[in-house]
């Protein structure tokens, strides 16, 4: 597979490490959320057959975490964003 890195351009997927569903960005706040919220966050997945937003890490590269939108049936990649941008757009800060 080839991932079109938003900064570096097309790179072989072998340079990356896969983590999983990009929803992992949406970590609850540990001081306010309890076990149930963390349980759902950490363990349950939509796991769609189709478009999937997922986290890849450019380990053999610039160390960017990326959010890749990829179809899990065709493997077609339609969008690649910096995870930091996605996190900020989702309201995450410090």
């Amino acid at each position, binding site marked *: 597979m080839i991932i079109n890195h938003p900064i570096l351009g097309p790179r072989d997927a*072998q340079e990356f490490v896969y983590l999983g569903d990009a929803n992992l960005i949406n970590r609850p706040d540990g001081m306010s959320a309890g076990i149930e919220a963390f349980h*759902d966050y950490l363990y349950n*997945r939509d*796991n*769609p*057959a189709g478009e*999937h937003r997922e986290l890849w890490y450019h380990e053999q590269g610039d160390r960017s975490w990326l959010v890749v939108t990829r179809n*899990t049936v065709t493997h077609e990649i339609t969008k690649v964003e910096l995870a930091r941008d996605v996190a900020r757009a989702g309201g995450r800060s410090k």
Partner: protein
Amino acid sequence: MRYSGFRVIAEALTGHKGWKPVWRDPAPKAEYDYIIVGGGGHGLATAYYLAKEFRQARIAVLEKGYLGGGNVGRNTTIIRSNYLLDGNEPFYEFSLKLWEGLEQDFNYNAMVSQRGIINLIHTDAQRDAFTRRGNGMILNGADAELLSRDQVRSMYPWLNFDNARFPIKGALMQRRGGTVRHDAVAWGYARGADLRGVDLIQNCEVTGMRIEGGRIKGVETTRGFIGAKKVGVAVAGSSSKVMAHAGMRLPIESHVLQAFVSEGLKPLIDGVMTFGAGHFYVSQSDKGGLVFGGDIDGYNSYAQRGNLPVIEDVAEGGMALMPAIGRARLLRTWGGIMDMSMDGSPIIDKTHVEGLYFNGGWCYGGFKATPASGWCFAHLLAKDEPHKTATAYRFDRFLKGLMIDEKGQGAQPNLH
């Protein structure tokens, strides 16, 4: 029709005119007591044991494609019970014991062959971990032996002993491990279930679930609505898709695992072997093909195919261990979709919907689990309580912090 050597000879002498269909092709009835969704190994075994051991009737298996077309038809055929953790080992040992009597039980030769499995050891830490595991196996009534480097060498002198990056230091062996002709397992269960009146309905995909008042009423299918008192889902690989019909999100991701077979070769490897310093495991089929595999590709996929880097990685492991296979040729690669669960262990449990039961999350250990999975799922369906070897396989173990994490990798499915 009972199969036997006598029958084969008698048919041969009379022109093979008497063979009967191995299963019927019934039209779906309006309602069943039990619907098993998924005509793979686990679903068929569930139906078989429901009918045979738990004396239940009015059972249907709904299969979206052909019987045995799931992961039972695309795996590397290994059976073993060399698990580490208490939540797993009794279950897999139960499974291995069922394998040992399976062919006589369902009157079909699935070529259950206990030629032994060895897990190679390359570091002292691995030996310690395998020692812990082997002792746990014995405490669970399974068999385990620790082999020295010399013992391994006497079994397979042509492995890479002299120029290895990670030298072989020994092995954990389970002599009762081995291989089974995978398709025959599906066919044997299917035939046994059919003989006991189970309706095996192929080309019938579940497209929805009818749930009223928190209770399952039946399933919508490509062949119309079919009512049921109880529905058991055993569709590993597609679990999230099917259970989404009941509004459930699962602690499961779908991943592709590739597997490989070489051209047929004269006998080379008797048992099953796993390489402890790379991603490679191998056995040789009764037809002579080396059947081998390695790691999952590592990304969510429903595509039933993988990519080249993993093929190379597996071949590298193979050549590192067995430098003599350089001129053997890889004949075929294929990919199966695994239900990778959040702790690497399966789920056999009720759901929040009354009458709806789930069996999945088998990661890449599902084939060897087939008999026990079917038995335990049938037990749960028939008695509404888990079988004693499957009590740990609950959905709520994640909420309660009772994970069964053989590899110690945590909630990251692609690492299990």
